[in-house]
Protein backbone atom coordinates (compact mmCIF):
# COMPACT_ATOMS: atom_id res chain seq x y z
CA UNK A 1 0.00 0.00 0.00
CA UNK A 2 1.44 3.38 -1.05
CA UNK A 3 1.98 5.76 1.82
CA UNK A 4 2.78 9.14 0.27
CA UNK A 5 2.11 12.70 1.40
CA UNK A 6 1.07 14.00 -2.02
CA UNK A 7 1.18 17.68 -1.11
CA UNK A 8 4.66 17.43 0.38
CA UNK A 9 5.81 15.42 -2.63
CA UNK A 10 4.39 18.01 -5.01
CA UNK A 11 6.06 20.88 -3.13
CA UNK A 12 9.40 19.03 -3.17
CA UNK A 13 8.98 18.25 -6.84
CA UNK A 14 8.23 21.86 -7.76
CA UNK A 15 11.19 23.08 -5.73
CA UNK A 16 13.59 20.64 -7.37
CA UNK A 17 12.09 21.43 -10.77
CA UNK A 18 12.67 25.16 -10.30
CA UNK A 19 16.28 24.63 -9.22
CA UNK A 20 16.95 22.14 -12.02
CA UNK A 21 15.38 24.48 -14.57
CA UNK A 22 17.76 27.28 -13.53
CA UNK A 23 20.79 25.01 -13.92
CA UNK A 24 19.54 23.56 -17.21
CA UNK A 25 18.91 27.06 -18.57
CA UNK A 26 22.44 28.12 -17.66
CA UNK A 27 23.94 25.07 -19.41
CA UNK A 28 21.68 25.59 -22.41
CA UNK A 29 22.97 29.14 -22.66
CA UNK A 30 26.57 27.94 -22.51
CA UNK A 31 26.41 24.83 -24.66
CA UNK A 32 23.07 24.88 -26.46
CA UNK A 33 23.51 28.42 -27.70
CA UNK A 34 27.25 29.18 -27.53
CA UNK A 35 28.67 25.67 -27.97
CA UNK A 36 30.89 25.80 -24.86
CA UNK A 37 30.80 22.20 -23.59
CA UNK A 38 30.66 22.78 -19.86
CA UNK A 39 31.15 19.37 -18.29
CA UNK A 40 31.94 21.02 -14.98
CA UNK A 41 28.47 22.37 -14.30
CA UNK A 42 28.44 20.72 -10.86
CA UNK A 43 31.44 22.87 -9.93
CA UNK A 44 29.56 26.11 -10.59
CA UNK A 45 26.50 24.90 -8.70
CA UNK A 46 28.74 23.87 -5.82
CA UNK A 47 30.15 27.42 -5.70
CA UNK A 48 26.71 28.49 -4.50
CA UNK A 49 26.64 25.73 -1.88
CA UNK A 50 30.12 26.52 -0.59
CA UNK A 51 29.36 30.24 -0.51
CA UNK A 52 26.32 29.48 1.64
CA UNK A 53 28.54 27.32 3.85
CA UNK A 54 30.74 30.33 4.54
CA UNK A 55 28.05 33.01 4.84
CA UNK A 56 25.79 30.97 7.12
CA UNK A 57 28.65 30.28 9.51
CA UNK A 58 30.60 33.56 9.37
CA UNK A 59 28.39 36.36 8.03
CA UNK A 60 25.03 35.50 9.56
CA UNK A 61 26.19 35.59 13.19
CA UNK A 62 27.80 38.98 12.54
CA UNK A 63 24.58 40.29 10.95
CA UNK A 64 22.73 39.18 14.08
CA UNK A 65 25.30 40.85 16.34
CA UNK A 66 26.58 37.53 17.65
CA UNK A 67 30.07 36.06 17.90
CA UNK A 68 31.25 33.73 15.15
CA UNK A 69 31.69 30.15 16.39
CA UNK A 70 33.91 27.59 14.64
CA UNK A 71 31.33 25.42 12.81
CA UNK A 72 33.51 22.32 12.47
CA UNK A 73 35.47 21.53 15.62
CA UNK A 74 34.33 20.77 19.13
CA UNK A 75 31.94 23.72 18.94
CA UNK A 76 30.03 22.14 16.02
CA UNK A 77 26.83 21.65 17.99
CA UNK A 78 26.96 25.12 19.51
CA UNK A 79 27.48 26.71 16.05
CA UNK A 80 24.60 24.71 14.60
CA UNK A 81 22.35 25.82 17.47
CA UNK A 82 23.28 29.44 16.84
CA UNK A 83 22.46 29.20 13.09
CA UNK A 84 19.10 27.58 13.78
CA UNK A 85 18.26 30.12 16.46
CA UNK A 86 19.04 33.12 14.26
CA UNK A 87 17.03 31.82 11.28
CA UNK A 88 14.11 30.87 13.53
CA UNK A 89 13.97 34.04 15.60
CA UNK A 90 15.42 36.87 13.45
CA UNK A 91 13.92 36.45 9.95
CA UNK A 92 15.30 39.78 8.75
CA UNK A 93 18.82 38.51 9.33
CA UNK A 94 17.97 35.19 7.66
CA UNK A 95 16.66 36.94 4.55
CA UNK A 96 19.52 39.45 4.43
CA UNK A 97 22.05 36.65 4.75
CA UNK A 98 20.27 34.67 2.03
CA UNK A 99 20.19 37.65 -0.34
CA UNK A 100 23.86 38.47 0.29
CA UNK A 101 24.71 34.80 -0.30
CA UNK A 102 22.96 34.90 -3.67
CA UNK A 103 24.89 38.00 -4.72
CA UNK A 104 28.29 36.71 -3.54
CA UNK A 105 27.69 33.28 -5.07
CA UNK A 106 26.71 34.85 -8.41
CA UNK A 107 29.88 36.96 -8.42
CA UNK A 108 32.20 34.13 -7.43
CA UNK A 109 30.48 31.71 -9.83
CA UNK A 110 30.71 34.27 -12.63
CA UNK A 111 34.40 34.96 -12.02
CA UNK A 112 35.24 31.24 -11.79
CA UNK A 113 33.31 30.67 -15.04
CA UNK A 114 35.11 33.57 -16.69
CA UNK A 115 38.47 32.13 -15.64
CA UNK A 116 37.41 28.64 -16.73
CA UNK A 117 36.80 30.01 -20.23
CA UNK A 118 40.49 30.90 -20.45
CA UNK A 119 41.55 27.37 -21.50
CA UNK A 120 39.11 27.77 -24.40
CA UNK A 121 41.58 30.24 -25.87
CA UNK A 122 44.38 27.69 -25.61
CA UNK A 123 42.67 24.43 -26.46
CA UNK A 124 42.05 23.80 -30.13
CA UNK A 125 39.40 21.13 -29.67
CA UNK A 126 36.36 22.28 -27.72
CA UNK A 127 35.99 18.81 -26.19
CA UNK A 128 39.37 19.20 -24.51
CA UNK A 129 37.76 22.08 -22.66
CA UNK A 130 34.97 19.72 -21.63
CA UNK A 131 37.56 17.40 -20.12
CA UNK A 132 39.38 20.25 -18.39
CA UNK A 133 36.13 21.38 -16.77
CA UNK A 134 35.14 17.83 -15.84
CA UNK A 135 38.47 17.17 -14.17
CA UNK A 136 38.58 20.67 -12.64
CA UNK A 137 35.16 20.11 -11.11
CA UNK A 138 36.29 16.86 -9.49
CA UNK A 139 39.53 18.39 -8.23
CA UNK A 140 37.68 21.23 -6.51
CA UNK A 141 35.21 18.76 -5.00
CA UNK A 142 37.99 16.61 -3.60
CA UNK A 143 39.82 19.64 -2.19
CA UNK A 144 36.65 20.92 -0.49
CA UNK A 145 36.00 17.43 0.90
CA UNK A 146 39.36 17.47 2.64
CA UNK A 147 39.51 21.13 3.70
CA UNK A 148 37.68 22.09 6.89
CA UNK A 149 36.97 25.84 6.68
CA UNK A 150 34.44 25.76 3.82
CA UNK A 151 31.86 23.08 4.71
CA UNK A 152 33.72 21.10 7.37
CA UNK A 153 35.43 18.80 4.84
CA UNK A 154 33.95 15.28 4.49
CA UNK A 155 31.59 15.80 7.45
CA UNK A 156 29.57 18.36 5.55
CA UNK A 157 27.66 21.24 7.07
CA UNK A 158 24.07 21.15 8.30
CA UNK A 159 21.75 23.92 9.41
CA UNK A 160 21.85 25.85 6.12
CA UNK A 161 18.12 26.40 6.35
CA UNK A 162 16.09 28.26 3.76
CA UNK A 163 14.99 31.73 4.92
CA UNK A 164 11.29 30.85 5.42
CA UNK A 165 12.22 28.38 8.16
CA UNK A 166 11.19 31.01 10.72
CA UNK A 167 7.53 30.29 9.88
CA UNK A 168 7.70 27.26 12.14
CA UNK A 169 5.21 25.23 10.09
CA UNK A 170 7.40 23.11 7.80
CA UNK A 171 4.74 22.74 5.08
CA UNK A 172 4.09 26.47 4.98
CA UNK A 173 7.79 27.32 4.86
CA UNK A 174 8.37 24.71 2.12
CA UNK A 175 5.53 26.18 0.07
CA UNK A 176 6.88 29.69 0.48
CA UNK A 177 10.35 28.56 -0.52
CA UNK A 178 8.98 26.67 -3.55
CA UNK A 179 7.27 29.91 -4.57
CA UNK A 180 10.55 31.79 -4.26
CA UNK A 181 12.41 29.14 -6.28
CA UNK A 182 9.80 29.12 -9.04
CA UNK A 183 9.83 32.91 -9.20
CA UNK A 184 13.64 32.87 -9.51
CA UNK A 185 13.42 30.15 -12.18
CA UNK A 186 10.85 32.23 -14.06
CA UNK A 187 13.14 35.25 -14.00
CA UNK A 188 16.09 33.15 -15.20
CA UNK A 189 13.92 31.80 -18.02
CA UNK A 190 12.88 35.30 -19.08
CA UNK A 191 16.47 36.53 -18.90
CA UNK A 192 17.98 33.64 -20.88
CA UNK A 193 15.14 33.68 -23.41
CA UNK A 194 15.66 37.40 -24.00
CA UNK A 195 19.41 36.87 -24.40
CA UNK A 196 18.78 34.06 -26.88
CA UNK A 197 16.40 36.24 -28.92
CA UNK A 198 18.79 39.17 -29.20
CA UNK A 199 21.78 40.10 -31.38
CA UNK A 200 23.90 38.70 -28.53
CA UNK A 201 22.15 35.34 -28.94
CA UNK A 202 22.89 35.53 -32.66
CA UNK A 203 26.55 36.18 -31.90
CA UNK A 204 26.68 33.15 -29.58
CA UNK A 205 25.10 30.94 -32.23
CA UNK A 206 27.62 32.15 -34.81
CA UNK A 207 30.51 31.39 -32.43
CA UNK A 208 29.03 27.92 -31.94
CA UNK A 209 28.56 27.33 -35.67
CA UNK A 210 31.96 28.51 -36.92
CA UNK A 211 34.24 30.51 -34.64
CA UNK A 212 36.80 31.19 -37.38
CA UNK A 213 34.23 32.80 -39.65
CA UNK A 214 32.77 34.74 -36.73
CA UNK A 215 36.26 36.13 -36.02
CA UNK A 216 36.76 37.00 -39.69
CA UNK A 217 33.54 39.04 -39.46
CA UNK A 218 35.01 41.15 -36.69
CA UNK A 219 33.60 39.30 -33.67
CA UNK A 220 35.67 38.66 -30.56
CA UNK A 221 35.17 34.94 -30.04
CA UNK A 222 37.14 34.68 -26.75
CA UNK A 223 35.17 37.58 -25.28
CA UNK A 224 31.83 36.08 -26.31
CA UNK A 225 32.79 32.74 -24.74
CA UNK A 226 34.06 34.39 -21.56
CA UNK A 227 30.88 36.46 -21.22
CA UNK A 228 28.56 33.51 -21.64
CA UNK A 229 30.59 31.47 -19.14
CA UNK A 230 30.35 34.37 -16.66
CA UNK A 231 26.58 34.61 -17.08
CA UNK A 232 25.92 30.86 -17.12
CA UNK A 233 28.14 30.15 -14.14
CA UNK A 234 26.61 33.00 -12.14
CA UNK A 235 23.15 31.53 -12.75
CA UNK A 236 24.39 28.04 -11.80
CA UNK A 237 25.87 29.39 -8.56
CA UNK A 238 22.59 31.14 -7.71
CA UNK A 239 20.81 27.83 -8.30
CA UNK A 240 23.42 26.23 -6.04
CA UNK A 241 22.38 28.49 -3.15
CA UNK A 242 18.74 27.44 -3.61
CA UNK A 243 19.81 23.81 -3.94
CA UNK A 244 21.84 23.69 -0.74
CA UNK A 245 19.39 25.69 1.38
CA UNK A 246 16.56 23.46 0.16
CA UNK A 247 18.51 20.43 1.38
CA UNK A 248 19.69 22.32 4.44
CA UNK A 249 22.93 20.40 4.26
CA UNK A 250 26.11 20.97 2.26
CA UNK A 251 28.20 18.00 1.21
CA UNK A 252 30.86 17.99 -1.49
CA UNK A 253 29.64 14.53 -2.53
CA UNK A 254 26.42 16.07 -3.90
CA UNK A 255 28.38 17.78 -6.69
CA UNK A 256 29.99 14.80 -8.37
CA UNK A 257 30.02 14.10 -12.11
CA UNK A 258 26.59 12.41 -12.00
CA UNK A 259 25.08 15.79 -11.08
CA UNK A 260 26.47 17.35 -14.24
CA UNK A 261 25.26 14.44 -16.37
CA UNK A 262 21.69 14.88 -15.08
CA UNK A 263 21.74 18.46 -16.35
CA UNK A 264 23.08 17.34 -19.72
CA UNK A 265 20.22 14.85 -20.00
CA UNK A 266 17.77 17.70 -19.35
CA UNK A 267 19.04 19.91 -22.19
CA UNK A 268 19.62 17.10 -24.71
CA UNK A 269 16.12 15.79 -24.00
CA UNK A 270 14.43 19.19 -23.98
CA UNK A 271 16.22 20.75 -26.94
CA UNK A 272 19.67 22.27 -27.29
CA UNK A 273 19.48 26.01 -27.85
CA UNK A 274 15.80 26.19 -26.92
CA UNK A 275 15.14 27.70 -23.49
CA UNK A 276 11.64 26.24 -23.29
CA UNK A 277 13.21 22.90 -24.12
CA UNK A 278 15.58 23.24 -21.16
CA UNK A 279 12.63 23.89 -18.85
CA UNK A 280 10.71 20.93 -20.31
CA UNK A 281 13.78 18.69 -19.96
CA UNK A 282 14.20 19.81 -16.35
CA UNK A 283 10.55 18.98 -15.65
CA UNK A 284 10.69 15.50 -17.19
CA UNK A 285 13.98 14.57 -15.53
CA UNK A 286 12.85 15.93 -12.14
CA UNK A 287 9.60 13.96 -12.30
CA UNK A 288 11.45 10.77 -13.30
CA UNK A 289 13.96 11.40 -10.55
CA UNK A 290 11.28 11.90 -7.89
CA UNK A 291 9.15 8.99 -9.09
CA UNK A 292 12.06 6.56 -8.98
CA UNK A 293 13.10 7.84 -5.55
CA UNK A 294 9.59 7.49 -4.13
CA UNK A 295 9.26 4.06 -5.74
CA UNK A 296 12.58 3.04 -4.23
CA UNK A 297 11.43 4.07 -0.75
CA UNK A 298 8.09 2.29 -1.16
CA UNK A 299 9.74 -0.91 -2.39
CA UNK A 300 12.19 -0.75 0.48
CA UNK A 301 9.34 -0.34 2.98
CA UNK A 302 7.61 -3.33 1.42
CA UNK A 303 10.72 -5.39 2.11
CA UNK A 304 11.91 -5.64 -1.51
CA UNK A 305 15.58 -6.47 -2.01
CA UNK A 306 15.57 -4.68 -5.39
CA UNK A 307 17.55 -1.40 -5.31
CA UNK A 308 15.18 0.68 -7.44
CA UNK A 309 16.99 3.96 -6.76
CA UNK A 310 19.61 3.20 -9.37
CA UNK A 311 17.02 2.55 -12.06
CA UNK A 312 16.98 6.27 -12.80
CA UNK A 313 20.58 6.17 -13.96
CA UNK A 314 19.66 3.43 -16.42
CA UNK A 315 16.60 5.41 -17.54
CA UNK A 316 18.64 8.61 -18.02
CA UNK A 317 21.30 6.71 -19.98
CA UNK A 318 18.70 5.17 -22.26
CA UNK A 319 17.01 8.56 -22.77
CA UNK A 320 20.33 10.15 -23.70
CA UNK A 321 21.18 7.39 -26.19
CA UNK A 322 17.73 7.38 -27.80
CA UNK A 323 17.62 11.15 -28.13
CA UNK A 324 21.09 11.39 -29.65
CA UNK A 325 20.25 8.58 -32.06
CA UNK A 326 16.72 9.50 -33.13
CA UNK A 327 16.08 13.14 -32.21
CA UNK A 328 19.34 15.01 -31.61
CA UNK A 329 17.54 18.36 -31.81
CA UNK A 330 15.53 17.44 -28.68
CA UNK A 331 11.80 17.54 -27.98
CA UNK A 332 11.64 21.28 -28.70
CA UNK A 333 14.18 22.16 -31.41
CA UNK A 334 16.04 25.46 -31.48
CA UNK A 335 14.05 28.18 -33.29
CA UNK A 336 15.67 29.22 -36.57
CA UNK A 337 15.15 32.95 -36.13
CA UNK A 338 16.74 34.97 -33.37
CA UNK A 339 15.42 38.54 -33.19
CA UNK A 340 12.12 40.01 -34.31
CA UNK A 341 13.88 41.46 -37.35
CA UNK A 342 12.42 38.55 -39.33
CA UNK A 343 8.91 39.57 -38.38
CA UNK A 344 9.81 43.17 -39.21
CA UNK A 345 10.78 42.16 -42.75
CA UNK A 346 7.66 40.03 -43.08
CA UNK A 347 5.55 43.04 -42.05
CA UNK A 348 7.49 45.21 -44.51
CA UNK A 349 6.15 42.92 -47.25
CA UNK A 350 7.78 40.09 -49.04
Amino acid at each position, binding site marked *: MLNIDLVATLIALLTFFGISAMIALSLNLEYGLAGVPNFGQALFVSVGAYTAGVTYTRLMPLLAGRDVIDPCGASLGQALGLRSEIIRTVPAVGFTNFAVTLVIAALIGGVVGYLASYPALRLKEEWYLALVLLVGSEIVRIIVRSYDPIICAHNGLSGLAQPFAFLGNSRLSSMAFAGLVLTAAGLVYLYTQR*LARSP*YGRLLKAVREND*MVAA*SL*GKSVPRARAQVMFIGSAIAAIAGVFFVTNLGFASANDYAVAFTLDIWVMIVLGGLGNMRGAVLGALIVTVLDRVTQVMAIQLDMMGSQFEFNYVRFIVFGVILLLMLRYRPQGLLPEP*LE*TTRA*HAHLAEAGD
Partner: protein
Amino acid sequence: MLMLEHVAKSFDSLRAVKDVSLTVPQGAIIGLIGPNGSGKSTLMNVIAGSLQPDAGRILFDGHDITDESARDIYQRGLARSFQDPSLFFRMSVLDNMLLPVKQQRGEQPARAPWHRLWRRDEDAHAAVAAANLADTQLRGHYAQPASDLSGGQMKLLELARSMMGDPKLLLLDEPTAGVAPALAYTIFDRIEALRQAGLTFLIVEHRLEILFNYVDSVYVMHLGEVIAHGTPADIQQNAQVREVYFGE
Protein backbone atom coordinates in the same frame (compact mmCIF):
# COMPACT_ATOMS: atom_id res chain seq x y z
CA MET B 1 44.35 50.96 -50.78
CA LEU B 2 46.25 47.69 -50.14
CA MET B 3 49.99 47.25 -50.46
CA LEU B 4 52.07 44.14 -49.74
CA GLU B 5 55.83 44.50 -49.42
CA HIS B 6 58.01 41.37 -49.53
CA VAL B 7 55.50 39.21 -47.64
CA ALA B 8 56.56 35.64 -46.83
CA LYS B 9 54.89 32.75 -45.01
CA SER B 10 56.21 29.25 -44.35
CA PHE B 11 54.75 26.14 -42.75
CA ASP B 12 57.71 24.23 -41.31
CA SER B 13 59.85 23.47 -44.37
CA LEU B 14 57.18 24.48 -46.90
CA ARG B 15 57.61 28.06 -48.14
CA ALA B 16 54.02 28.72 -49.17
CA VAL B 17 54.50 32.44 -49.92
CA LYS B 18 57.93 33.84 -50.83
CA ASP B 19 58.66 37.54 -51.05
CA VAL B 20 55.34 38.68 -52.54
CA SER B 21 54.75 42.35 -53.26
CA LEU B 22 51.58 43.66 -54.83
CA THR B 23 49.39 46.75 -54.93
CA VAL B 24 45.61 47.03 -55.07
CA PRO B 25 44.60 50.60 -55.98
CA GLN B 26 41.43 52.23 -54.62
CA GLY B 27 38.35 51.28 -56.64
CA ALA B 28 40.09 48.55 -58.63
CA ILE B 29 39.25 44.92 -59.25
CA ILE B 30 42.50 42.99 -59.13
CA GLY B 31 42.73 39.30 -59.95
CA LEU B 32 45.08 36.85 -58.27
CA ILE B 33 45.53 33.65 -60.24
CA GLY B 34 47.82 30.66 -60.29
CA PRO B 35 47.76 26.87 -60.32
CA ASN B 36 46.67 24.93 -57.25
CA GLY B 37 49.28 25.10 -54.50
CA SER B 38 50.75 28.37 -55.76
CA GLY B 39 50.10 30.09 -52.40
CA LYS B 40 47.06 32.23 -53.28
CA SER B 41 44.82 31.12 -50.40
CA THR B 42 47.72 31.36 -47.93
CA LEU B 43 48.34 34.90 -49.12
CA MET B 44 44.65 35.75 -48.63
CA ASN B 45 44.81 34.33 -45.10
CA VAL B 46 47.89 36.42 -44.37
CA ILE B 47 46.29 39.62 -45.68
CA ALA B 48 43.08 39.01 -43.69
CA GLY B 49 45.02 38.35 -40.49
CA SER B 50 44.04 34.67 -40.17
CA LEU B 51 47.75 33.85 -40.51
CA GLN B 52 50.67 35.98 -39.37
CA PRO B 53 53.37 36.59 -42.02
CA ASP B 54 56.97 35.54 -41.26
CA ALA B 55 58.36 38.56 -43.07
CA GLY B 56 57.26 41.64 -44.97
CA ARG B 57 54.76 44.42 -44.43
CA ILE B 58 51.08 44.86 -45.24
CA LEU B 59 49.59 48.34 -45.52
CA PHE B 60 45.85 48.90 -45.76
CA ASP B 61 44.22 52.29 -46.12
CA GLY B 62 47.38 53.97 -44.81
CA HIS B 63 47.76 51.69 -41.77
CA ASP B 64 50.32 48.98 -41.13
CA ILE B 65 48.11 45.91 -40.46
CA THR B 66 50.93 43.33 -40.61
CA ASP B 67 50.57 42.18 -37.00
CA GLU B 68 46.88 42.93 -36.48
CA SER B 69 44.27 40.26 -35.71
CA ALA B 70 41.60 39.22 -38.21
CA ARG B 71 39.06 41.01 -36.06
CA ASP B 72 40.96 44.31 -36.03
CA ILE B 73 41.60 44.14 -39.76
CA TYR B 74 37.88 43.58 -40.36
CA GLN B 75 37.10 46.60 -38.19
CA ARG B 76 39.37 48.68 -40.47
CA GLY B 77 37.19 47.74 -43.45
CA LEU B 78 38.93 44.76 -45.01
CA ALA B 79 36.47 41.87 -45.32
CA ARG B 80 36.92 38.47 -46.90
CA SER B 81 35.10 35.45 -48.21
CA PHE B 82 36.36 31.89 -48.07
CA GLN B 83 36.91 29.29 -50.79
CA ASP B 84 34.15 27.07 -49.41
CA PRO B 85 30.93 28.85 -48.50
CA SER B 86 31.54 29.93 -44.94
CA LEU B 87 28.00 30.62 -43.87
CA PHE B 88 26.34 29.84 -40.58
CA PHE B 89 24.29 27.07 -42.10
CA ARG B 90 21.90 26.46 -39.21
CA MET B 91 21.05 30.14 -38.97
CA SER B 92 18.58 32.02 -41.17
CA VAL B 93 19.74 33.96 -44.22
CA LEU B 94 18.76 37.19 -42.45
CA ASP B 95 20.73 36.29 -39.32
CA ASN B 96 23.73 35.55 -41.53
CA MET B 97 23.32 39.05 -42.98
CA LEU B 98 22.89 40.81 -39.64
CA LEU B 99 25.80 39.23 -37.81
CA PRO B 100 28.62 41.23 -39.48
CA VAL B 101 27.09 44.63 -38.65
CA LYS B 102 29.64 46.50 -36.55
CA GLN B 103 29.02 48.09 -33.13
CA GLN B 104 25.65 46.42 -32.48
CA ARG B 105 24.26 47.56 -29.16
CA GLY B 106 22.27 44.37 -28.80
CA GLU B 107 25.47 42.32 -28.91
CA GLN B 108 26.41 43.55 -25.44
CA PRO B 109 25.04 41.13 -22.85
CA ALA B 110 24.11 43.96 -20.48
CA ARG B 111 21.86 45.53 -23.13
CA ALA B 112 20.73 42.41 -24.98
CA PRO B 113 17.79 41.55 -22.65
CA TRP B 114 16.29 45.02 -23.05
CA HIS B 115 14.78 45.03 -26.55
CA ARG B 116 13.96 48.71 -26.43
CA LEU B 117 17.68 49.55 -26.37
CA TRP B 118 18.44 47.92 -29.73
CA ARG B 119 15.16 47.16 -31.50
CA ARG B 120 15.22 50.29 -33.69
CA ASP B 121 18.85 49.67 -34.74
CA GLU B 122 18.03 46.05 -35.50
CA ASP B 123 15.08 46.98 -37.72
CA ALA B 124 17.24 49.53 -39.56
CA HIS B 125 19.97 46.91 -40.11
CA ALA B 126 17.31 44.45 -41.31
CA ALA B 127 16.12 47.00 -43.88
CA VAL B 128 19.70 47.42 -45.19
CA ALA B 129 20.08 43.62 -45.24
CA ALA B 130 16.82 43.29 -47.18
CA ALA B 131 18.07 45.80 -49.78
CA ASN B 132 21.37 43.92 -50.16
CA LEU B 133 19.51 40.62 -50.44
CA ALA B 134 17.24 42.11 -53.09
CA ASP B 135 20.34 43.13 -55.10
CA THR B 136 21.44 39.50 -55.11
CA GLN B 137 17.98 38.01 -55.77
CA LEU B 138 17.88 36.51 -52.28
CA ARG B 139 15.25 38.74 -50.71
CA GLY B 140 12.64 35.97 -50.77
CA HIS B 141 14.93 33.59 -48.92
CA TYR B 142 15.56 35.70 -45.82
CA ALA B 143 13.71 33.42 -43.42
CA GLN B 144 15.23 30.16 -44.68
CA PRO B 145 18.19 28.43 -43.11
CA ALA B 146 21.35 29.18 -45.11
CA SER B 147 21.80 25.44 -45.64
CA ASP B 148 18.71 25.43 -47.89
CA LEU B 149 20.34 27.65 -50.52
CA SER B 150 21.98 26.34 -53.68
CA GLY B 151 25.77 26.58 -54.07
CA GLY B 152 25.47 29.69 -56.22
CA GLN B 153 23.03 31.33 -53.84
CA MET B 154 25.43 30.63 -50.97
CA LYS B 155 28.18 32.47 -52.83
CA LEU B 156 25.80 35.37 -53.46
CA LEU B 157 24.83 35.41 -49.81
CA GLU B 158 28.49 35.55 -48.81
CA LEU B 159 28.97 38.52 -51.10
CA ALA B 160 25.83 40.23 -49.78
CA ARG B 161 26.85 39.47 -46.20
CA SER B 162 30.28 40.97 -46.64
CA MET B 163 28.61 44.27 -47.53
CA MET B 164 26.95 44.46 -44.11
CA GLY B 165 30.19 45.42 -42.36
CA ASP B 166 30.67 48.53 -44.56
CA PRO B 167 33.94 47.25 -46.05
CA LYS B 168 36.35 49.29 -48.14
CA LEU B 169 38.05 46.29 -49.68
CA LEU B 170 36.84 42.75 -50.25
CA LEU B 171 39.11 39.73 -50.54
CA LEU B 172 37.16 37.09 -52.42
CA ASP B 173 38.52 33.55 -52.60
CA GLU B 174 37.03 31.84 -55.66
CA PRO B 175 33.63 33.58 -55.58
CA THR B 176 32.27 31.40 -58.41
CA ALA B 177 33.65 28.00 -57.39
CA GLY B 178 31.03 25.32 -58.01
CA VAL B 179 28.58 27.83 -59.48
CA ALA B 180 26.72 27.42 -62.82
CA PRO B 181 28.11 29.74 -65.56
CA ALA B 182 25.05 32.00 -65.74
CA LEU B 183 25.09 32.57 -61.99
CA ALA B 184 28.87 33.08 -62.07
CA TYR B 185 28.34 36.05 -64.41
CA THR B 186 25.60 37.32 -62.08
CA ILE B 187 28.09 37.23 -59.21
CA PHE B 188 30.69 39.16 -61.18
CA ASP B 189 28.07 41.65 -62.40
CA ARG B 190 27.28 42.28 -58.74
CA ILE B 191 30.99 42.72 -58.00
CA GLU B 192 31.26 45.24 -60.83
CA ALA B 193 28.21 47.12 -59.51
CA LEU B 194 29.81 47.28 -56.08
CA ARG B 195 33.05 48.55 -57.60
CA GLN B 196 31.03 51.32 -59.28
CA ALA B 197 29.76 52.16 -55.80
CA GLY B 198 33.34 52.64 -54.60
CA LEU B 199 34.49 49.25 -53.34
CA THR B 200 37.88 47.71 -54.07
CA PHE B 201 38.40 44.00 -54.78
CA LEU B 202 41.20 41.46 -54.72
CA ILE B 203 39.82 38.24 -56.19
CA VAL B 204 41.29 34.76 -56.36
CA GLU B 205 39.56 32.94 -59.22
CA HIS B 206 40.16 29.92 -61.41
CA ARG B 207 37.56 30.72 -64.05
CA LEU B 208 39.73 33.04 -66.06
CA GLU B 209 37.27 33.33 -68.96
CA ILE B 210 34.94 35.16 -66.59
CA LEU B 211 37.48 36.91 -64.38
CA PHE B 212 39.35 38.51 -67.31
CA ASN B 213 36.17 40.36 -68.36
CA TYR B 214 36.04 42.28 -65.11
CA VAL B 215 39.54 42.86 -63.71
CA ASP B 216 41.80 45.87 -64.17
CA SER B 217 44.93 43.83 -63.73
CA VAL B 218 46.03 40.36 -62.71
CA TYR B 219 48.82 39.00 -60.54
CA VAL B 220 49.99 35.49 -61.34
CA MET B 221 51.47 33.33 -58.58
CA HIS B 222 53.51 30.17 -59.00
CA LEU B 223 55.24 28.22 -56.21
CA GLY B 224 54.70 31.05 -53.74
CA GLU B 225 56.00 33.84 -55.96
CA VAL B 226 54.47 36.48 -58.22
CA ILE B 227 55.74 35.63 -61.68
CA ALA B 228 53.74 38.18 -63.67
CA HIS B 229 51.52 41.23 -63.34
CA GLY B 230 49.57 43.01 -66.04
CA THR B 231 46.28 43.46 -67.83
CA PRO B 232 44.38 40.33 -68.82
CA ALA B 233 45.66 40.80 -72.41
CA ASP B 234 49.28 41.04 -71.18
CA ILE B 235 48.88 37.96 -69.01
CA GLN B 236 47.38 35.92 -71.81
CA GLN B 237 50.41 36.76 -73.98
CA ASN B 238 53.02 36.16 -71.25
CA ALA B 239 55.13 33.13 -72.19
CA GLN B 240 56.08 32.20 -68.59
CA VAL B 241 52.46 32.36 -67.50
CA ARG B 242 51.36 30.23 -70.44
CA GLU B 243 54.00 27.68 -69.50
CA VAL B 244 53.28 27.34 -65.77
CA TYR B 245 49.58 28.10 -65.80
CA PHE B 246 48.26 26.92 -69.13
CA GLY B 247 50.84 24.13 -69.56
CA GLU B 248 51.96 25.31 -72.97
